[in-house]
């Protein structure tokens, strides 16, 4: 709105001046200050002028007053002259002389204070007065010589003439003074009026100029600040394409230039970062596809491997079970060996498939309610004959009155079977014990043996993939080396943890704890669980 007005052009012009903000502000203040100083000087001059004219007026008044004194003295002088002539008394002459003194005194003052052009008039009055005093001297002589009777009339006539002369001249003086006074009064009135108008004009000009300076200067600052505000808001919102258009020649202009530089840099970095992110995304997609393809391949391959294996195991079992007729005694052992090795191969394939599924994030738990004693019972049932063959004691101890548990019982059975199977495998004498207790809403499964034990160095690695205590163990005891790491992952999927305590040669105890009811809020979840 402001931009298209002349004021806007002025604002732009001021903004464009190549000077600092400080200099611009100082200049604006200086302009206003100079105007106020000029106004003050004019007022002082007016006051001085008016004072001089007043003094002149006072002097004129004074002169008029003295002229009146002269007139008074003259009137008395005339009065006493008549009195002296009538009474023929010399005492009256003395009174005339006294009035003459007064007259001269006033005339001297008038002459001293008078203007140069009045001097001549005063001299004329003085000479007339001298003539009048000569007449008075004649009067005095005539009274003393008793010759008054003859000259009274002449003297009186002379005196009256001179008196008239003086009166006329003094009146002339007074009149010129009064004219002068009128002129002075007019002049003072005019000066006062002019002064009032000029002062008012100065005041208005000062106010307008101050306002204009303030307006223009402040807008020349506010405009770029507002521009910057909008610009920075866009930058903050992530739009780095905008540029700020500020043509100030001051710090604001420099600031705007730096903001534009910042914006360009941000845009450049943003582009680089976006490209890198896009590259990462595409790389990630390719990796994901590759990983999925790998998992898919493994799953399909496992299926393909298991189908013929299934047939091998099936036929072997049927042969052993006598479905094809009586088996010769010498073939029974090799047939058993085929069956055992086939089963081992199947377990390997299953373990590899499980691990592949877990690593591809495609392993899912099938949660359902299960009975802990039943789970432990099935593991015990499966391994009982194996333990008995080795002459080992194999016991279970499950806490009484356990409530119904919830979890993937198939996977938990697999874990417990793995731990108990390992325990029997690595124990030559003594026994294996499975125990289950409930602690703060979590089931603790414990499998302890009196076997070969595990040293502290091996203990920290046993849950890693393809680890057994050493390579000879695999040959002697069998196993895939995947059981513990798969168990660990199943337990962690249940929100639990697995660990072992052992000393080489003194047997081992494996523990795992899982929530009693997986996937349901537990009253114990807010409390930190202890191992």
């Amino acid at each position, binding site marked *: 709105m402001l931009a298209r007005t002349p004021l806007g052009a002025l604002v732009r012009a001021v903004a464009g001046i190549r000077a600092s903000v400080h200099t611009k502000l100082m200049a604006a203040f200086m302009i206003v200050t100079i105007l106020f100083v000029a106004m003050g000087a004019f007022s002082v001059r007016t006051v001085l002028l008016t004072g001089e004219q007043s003094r002149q007026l006072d002097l004129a008044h004074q002169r008029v007053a003295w002229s009146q004194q002269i007139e008074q003295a003259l009137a008395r002088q005339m009065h006493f002259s008549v009195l002296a002539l009538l009474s023929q008394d010399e005492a009256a002459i003395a009174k005339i002389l006294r009035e003459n003194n007064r007259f001269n005194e006033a005339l001297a003052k008038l002459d001293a204070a008078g203007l140069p052009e009045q001097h001549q008039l005063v001299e004329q009055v003085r000479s007339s007065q001298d003539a009048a005093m000569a007449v008075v001297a004649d009067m005095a002589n005539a009274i003393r010589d008793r010759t008054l009777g003859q000259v009274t009339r002449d003297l009186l006539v002379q005196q009256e003439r001179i008196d008239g002369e003086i009166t006329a001249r003094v009146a002339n003086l007074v009149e010129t003074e009064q004219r002068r006074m009128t002129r002075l009064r007019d002049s003072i009135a005019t000066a006062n009026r002019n002064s009032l108008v000029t002062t008012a004009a100065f005041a208005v000009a000062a106010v307008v100029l101050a306002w204009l300076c303030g307006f223009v200067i402040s807008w020349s600052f506010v405009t770029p600040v507002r521009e910057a505000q909008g610009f920075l808001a866009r930058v903050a919102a992530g739009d780095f394409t905008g540029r700020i258009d500020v043509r100030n020649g001051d710090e604001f202009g420099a600031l705007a230039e730096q903001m534009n530089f910042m914006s360009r840099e941000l845009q450049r970095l943003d582009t680089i970062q976006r490209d890198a992110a896009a590259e990462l995304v595409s790389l990630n997609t390719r990796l994901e596809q590759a990983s999925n393809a790998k998992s898919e391949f493994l799953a399909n391959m496992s299926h393909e491997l*298991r189908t013929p294996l299934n047939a091998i195991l*099936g036929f072997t079992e049927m042969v052993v*079970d006598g479905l*094809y007729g009586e088996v010769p005694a010498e073939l029974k052992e090799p047939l058993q060996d085929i069956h055992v090795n086939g089963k081992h191969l199947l377990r390997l394939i299953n373990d590899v498939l499980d691990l592949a599924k877990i690593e591809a994030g*495609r*392993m899912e738990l*099938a949660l359902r309610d299960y009975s802990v004693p039943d789970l432990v019972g099935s593991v015990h049932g499966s391994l009982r004959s194996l333990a008995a063959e080795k002459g080992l004691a194999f016991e279970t101890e499950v806490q009484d009155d356990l409530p119904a548990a919830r979890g993937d019982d198939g996977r938990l059975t697999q874990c417990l079977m793995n731990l108990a199977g390992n325990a029997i495998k690595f124990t030559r004498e003594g026994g294996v014990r499975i125990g289950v207790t409930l602690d703060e809403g979590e089931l603790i499964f414990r499998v302890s043996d009196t076997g070969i034990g595990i040293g502290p160095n091996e203990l920290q690695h046993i849950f890693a993939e393809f680890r057994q205590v050493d390579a000879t163990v695999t040959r002697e005891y069998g196993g895939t080396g995947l059981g513990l790491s798969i168990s660990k992952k199943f337990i962690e999927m249940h929100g639990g943890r697995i660990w072992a305590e052992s000393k080489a040669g003194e047997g081992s105890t494996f523990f795992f704890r899982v929530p009693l009811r997986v996937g349901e809020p537990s009253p114990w979840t807010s409390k930190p669980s202890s191992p």
Partner: protein
Amino acid sequence: MDQQTILTIEDNEYNRKIVRKLLGSSYRLVEAVDGEAGVALAVAELPDLILMDVQLPKMSGLEATRILRADARTKHIPIVIITSFALSGDRERAADSGAAAYLAKPYSPGELLALVRKFLPE
């Protein structure tokens, strides 16, 4: 008494052979090697039990099971799904398909015999 009929839908020849050896003496067996043929044979024969493999050519075992469940003529026939659970979600899909039971591959001949006897006591 007439022998009860079992339909085996299985693409692997050796698995069919095992089933024949295991059950052939006690039951009448009919066989199909893909899903479509299996559905057609089920409608034609109306067997007493169907053993259905999941990974089949032309039509998967799960799809065939759904079709037979939806058909008024075959919906009463119990179906045993045989799966290797190779892919995640197989277990859920098997449970959702409406099968009467499922058997995990690899199964032993003894397990299969026990399951069949549960549905068709001799």
